[in-house]
């Protein structure tokens, strides 16, 4: 028997993982100086393409008369969702870096495009599949909680740390790798310089465009895998219309909450995940459900107020974020 606290933590981690992936993608993007507000769009694209990846793999296996292997199905979902998110980010990068269009407008357009694209494709593929789009048992099993021999069986620690689906560990690994990359490697230093002061980075011999393209596209791919989590884990491999709605925006807010640090992102994603599921575990008599549902958004507003009041150079948004760079611009 697990007590309420443990279950709440586990539910918070599960609910926070897509937020973490979305926020991590956006942290990498904003560190390069691109403020991509298309997170929601890229997550949607990742969600549908990840699901489609598994679905098509299953179809192909069935057609060939072979057995569906969960590992490959999950891999297909991961690769397809990453590619979809990266593709959205590539469009964004081309518009903002090469054509120097306005970043906010481009990001918003990407969100609208991605949402429409995913919902349309999801409905359409569902009709083709005879009602709704869903993956088979083998794939579902691949996204089920892990049972690691010995570790998962430790009382308390087992459920708290070793009984999640593989995506949770994937997200944590991405966060750690990103933190090491940003703060411990030469390329990370260069990338941060590009985001802080592209003119200074350029004068130091760093290719601003190359770093921005790379970071934005990879960041978009990570956002895409966050969307795939929604369609494969949260909705258990069934396409639900608008399944990502709101998550992408929360991820953008989390970036500020995490002060552009991947490791702090882990913590704040879990907290926000907790706020999203708390209604299912804690009930205060007389408090309407709508109040609970507002919690993450109220918290977002509070966080924005607090971070705006507390002005710190070290934990501020990279100074070049949101601004396009053109070397021959005259000061």
């Amino acid at each position, binding site marked *: 028997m697990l007590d309420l606290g443990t279950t709440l933590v586990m539910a918070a981690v599960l609910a926070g993982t897509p937020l973490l992936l979305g926020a991590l993608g956006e942290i990498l993007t904003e560190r390069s100086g691109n403020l991509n507000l298309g997170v929601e769009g890229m997550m949607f694209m990742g969600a549908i393409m990840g699901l489609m990846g598994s679905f098509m793999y299953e179809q192909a296996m069935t057609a060939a008369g072979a057995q569906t292997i969960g590992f490959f199905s999950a891999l297909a979902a991961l690769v397809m969702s990453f590619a979809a998110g990266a593709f959205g980010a590539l469009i964004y990068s081309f518009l903002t870096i090469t054509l120097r269009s306005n970043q906010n407008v481009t990001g918003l357009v990407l969100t609208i495009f991605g949402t429409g694209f995913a919902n349309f494709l999801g409905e359409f593929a569902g009709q083709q599949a005879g009602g709704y789009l869903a993956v088979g048992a083998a794939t579902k099993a691949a996204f089920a909680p892990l049972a690691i021999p010995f570790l998962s069986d430790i009382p308390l620690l087992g459920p708290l740390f070793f009984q999640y689906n593989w995506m949770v560990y994937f997200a944590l690994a991405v966060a750690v790798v990103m933190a090491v990359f940003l703060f*411990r*490697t*030469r*390329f990370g*230093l*260069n990338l*941060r*310089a590009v985001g*802080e*002061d592209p*003119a*200074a*980075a*350029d*004068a*130091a*011999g*760093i*290719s601003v465009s190359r770093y921005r393209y790379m970071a934005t596209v990879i960041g978009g791919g990570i956002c895409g895998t966050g969307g795939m989590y929604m369609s494969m884990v949260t909705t258990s491999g069934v396409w639900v219309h608008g399944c990502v709605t709101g998550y992408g925006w929360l991820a953008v807010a989390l970036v500020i909450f995490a002060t552009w640090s991947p490791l702090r992102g882990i913590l704040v994603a879990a907290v926000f995940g907790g706020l999203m599921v708390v209604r299912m575990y804690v009930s205060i008599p007389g408090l309407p459900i709508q109040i609970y549902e507002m919690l993450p958004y109220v918290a977002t507003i509070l966080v924005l107020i607090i971070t705006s009041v507390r002005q710190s*150079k*070290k934990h*501020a948004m990279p*100074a070049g974020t949101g601004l396009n760079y053109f*070397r*021959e611009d*005259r*000061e």
Partner: protein
Amino acid sequence: MSLTGSLQIEDDLMSDTLAVHMENITKTFGKVYANKDVSLELRQGEILALLGENGSGKTSLVNMLSGIYFPDSGEIFVQGKKVTIRSPRDAYGLGIGMIHQHFKLVDVFTAAENIVLGQPGALAMSKRHIESRVAELAGRYGFEIDPAKPVYEMSVSEKQTTEIIKILYRGADILILDEPTAVLTPHETDKLFAVMRNMKADGKSIIIITHKLGEVLAVSDRTHVLRKGECVATVNTAETGKAQLTEMMVGRPVSLHIERPHTAKNDERLRVVDLTCCNKDGLKTLDKVSFTAYGGEILGIAGIAGSGQKELCEAIAGLYPAIGGAVLMRGQWEGEAVMEPVLGLGPDVISKKGISMAFVPEDRLGMGLVAAMNITDNVMLRSYKNSKSPLVDRKTPRVLAEHLIEQLAIVAPGPGAIVGRLSGGNVQKVLIGREIAQEPTVLIVAYPVRGLDINSSYKIYDLLNEQKKKGVAVVFIGEDLDVLLELSDRLLVLSSGRVSGIVDPRTVTKEEVGMMMVLDVVDPSNVSSEPPPEQLQMDLSLQDVEMGASAGGGSASADLFLRDAEAGGKAQ
């Protein structure tokens, strides 16, 4: 055929001995020529000064060497080899490093991080390792630098040192410094020149861009003069002088004499009594500052950077909070002239009292004008409240804008020209012109000629003199001591937020003022409105110390500036 062939060979031989040879370079921005058919030669191990007025194309020319701009036509040879420089990275590859006027440093990074930025090396990077390497390099050239200090905590001079080390770290042997002294105190300038001479002795070839003649003469071996994007002449610095250089720069002989018309002393216009201000760290930026300004005079205010000049004019204008003292201005009350206290009142309330004060701030495009708006709209900012109609009156400001363009010879396509696209001199003319059009009784100008070329500067001095003749009390905060001494009728000297004296510029020497600028006033109550210079408590024996050249903040011995240069750095 054979003729061109032999010329080519000769050319190659010549280029061999040159560190850099730029030939017939042309660069345009839209329809404007930044550089037209310009050639430049930099010899091995020399300091070449690139002299020219603002907009003469000095910076764009060297930007093509450092890979920021790409020339439309022309050829560049580095160490005798023809090269194509497409990016700063290419420039570093050729051993060319540039220190830009606006430093290219990442604010939140430390000195060491900025220095190794973009350099190849091991993927993993340890802070301690790069810091020790930077410290080692700095030590070799005798720089004082804390590799772990973040840029946003640095003084301007420390930032410049970081930039220089950054370029040396990249193994550059051709260094370009763009207006390096614009932001330095005289002492820091001397230190920089010493560093430049050291680097020259080390075999580096250096280009220094400047429009200050004294610096050209002090540090360079040869001088290359540009005017309106074209080459004018190259001379050996030792064989030339200020007058000749100015003539080459401006294109005609220029009198460097500033007029000081005689006017009868008028009534009291502005009285400041014991004005005291604190900054947000609780340090006193102004300490019991008292003075009076009269109509028909120019009161100069001198002091090294950060002595409280900015705070003083902003406090008078009602933009900077004061913790003590009073500011009185001449206003009208029931037809009688009275001195009204204005401290702590907003600009609106002050103008309602019948006081007309104009303030031309140091930060022209930040505080003075809106860069993205046109001349008419900027003029309107001052007058739109005068109309009672719900719609703004655009006609009157447009007429005034046209008038200003004509009267002050502002180079602009028309009153619809966006202010941010005008050159510095023209921006300043718009700002001063607008303020003067308000017919102020008191006019406060802060660093009005900073960054302006000689022609524009003299135009500004003329405008101020005109106001003085009209009977306006002009308060002029300046940085060039020579100018202050020639232009002002009285000169107030600030030192660390205190008045160290008000002197008569006709009789005082530059050295005396230089020392007052770094003097701690023992008893501020001793300062009367016009003490003769000999009353000042100075250790005159200090005058024997070698006096530095006038560079920006005036002149005094280098040692004297040490302590205050540090204080100034912190204040910035």
